[in-house]
């Protein structure tokens, strides 16, 4: 479990996170939503250790992130997988080398073993025959798949995704969503997704945290989100006619 208690983060005068507390459980797809500038990315980067919070505690299965030594923090990071918004694949490396990179750095596997693992994860994300291609030769959806493959190659306990659907067509976005959910359940890991895509939120958001102006304004499941009367959530999530109608239909159905 990841437990976050009273997390504060500022940049100069700007207070971005103002005391966020929550928990994330194993085997669940957790989603962080909110308007641009609400602190979603900063929150995710604090969890990843890329930003150091001024106040608050982040615990990874009982290990307090802020109290870890450099060595144990590095060990903890090896248990994390991250899918960045733009993929963040290494341009100079092929798909195969990108995915093999964490294995090369942290394992003593021989090349054939590493290749087997690379092919296994590529197969898992339904991407065959791309081993020797460079990231620039791949479509956006394929790059995301490679990024997911790289994130899971070390069997992480925690998977973080920053806007995994941005820039993808709806069909590919659904495929990526389903893939992330399947992986979460299959490997029984904690997945935290930062998203703007309400389709994803409705589809796979087992736990949703709504951030507004640096505070947690609401949390619940996707089903609870249909029923909530929380003004901030209703205003943000149901701002489009389509989602308003979907919500009305759901509420009529469940009456």
């Amino acid at each position, binding site marked *: 479990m990841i437990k976050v208690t009273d997390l504060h983060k500022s940049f100069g005068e700007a207070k971005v996170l103002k005391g966020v507390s929550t928990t994330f459980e194993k085997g669940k797809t957790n989603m962080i939503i909110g308007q641009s500038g609400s602190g979603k990315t900063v929150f995710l980067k604090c969890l990843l250790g*890329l930003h150091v919070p001024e106040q608050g505690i982040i615990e990874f299965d009982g290990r307090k992130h802020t109290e870890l030594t450099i060595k144990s923090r590095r060990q903890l990071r090896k248990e994390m997988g991250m899918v*960045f918004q733009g993929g963040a*694949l290494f341009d100079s490396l092929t798909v195969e080398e990108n995915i093999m990179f964490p294995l090369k750095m*942290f394992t003593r596997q021989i090349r054939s073993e590493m290749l087997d693992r690379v092919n296994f994860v590529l197969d898992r994300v339904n991407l065959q025959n791309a081993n020797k291609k460079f990231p620039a030769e791949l479509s956006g959806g394929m790059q995301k798949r490679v990024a997911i493959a790289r994130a899971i190659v070390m069997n992480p306990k925690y998977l973080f995704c920053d806007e995994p659907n941005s820039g993808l067509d709806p069909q590919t976005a659904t495929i990526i969503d389903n893939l992330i959910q399947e992986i979460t359940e299959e490997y029984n890991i904690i997945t935290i997704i930062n998203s703007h895509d309400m389709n994803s939120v409705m589809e796979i958001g087992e736990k949703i945290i709504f951030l507004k102006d640096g505070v947690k304004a609401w949390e619940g499941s996707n089903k609870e989100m249909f029923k909530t009367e929380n003004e901030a959530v209703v205003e943000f999530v149901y701002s489009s006619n389509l989602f308003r109608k979907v919500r009305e239909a759901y509420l009529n159905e469940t009456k």
Partner: protein
Amino acid sequence: MNYIEHVGKYFIMLKQVFRKPQKWSVFKEMLFREVEDLGLKSLGIIMFISFFVGGVVAIQTALNVDSPFIPKYLIGFATKRGIILEFAPTFMSIILAGKVGSYITSSIGTMRVTEQIDALEVMGINSLNYLVLPKIIAALFFYPLLVMLSIFLGIFGGYCAGLLTDLFFSEDFIYGIQLDFNPYFLKYALTKTVVFAFAIATIPAYHGYYVKGGSLEVGRASTMAVVWTSIVIILLNYFLTQMLLG
């Protein structure tokens, strides 16, 4: 951010760079890649410039030394001294600061703005050590070789200029380059090169690593890196010359 803050941040960066590599086999792979990118790919331009500038130095000296009281072998002597003491170590380093420095800043800067450096950090990798240390080692070991080659080609360019222009006899030139040869000058040139190589690898890396924004900022950082590396080389050249020859 003021200059003192930048200097402080630069030295803090160096502290992170000079750590034991997390995996030697990966470090070795990176080192070979950097030797190719920073060294071998600069061979052509260094050879071309050295040969022709060596020729120009010899021609200029010959044209300006037209007094019958000044022996012609001084053309070879002056060409050799100029090339060993200043042209090869300093001028070549400034050219490398432009070519290699902009490459280092733009490659690291692009990695920064496309979150590739964040990806390394999330994996638990010391990104500064992984990205910058192989560049420093490659530059420190390879640039002295480039400068030796530059010295040879510069003098050879001067010799060829004599053959092609008939401004001086090749025998005089060869006598001039053998005259009063001081091996300490080579040591001086190589010492300067090693110091400049360190600046060429680290200052652009600093500018690339801490860039914020997008492609425009990466471009600006590359320009700043070349400007600052050149300034630092010129200043270091002044102090090193004073220290080693003064």
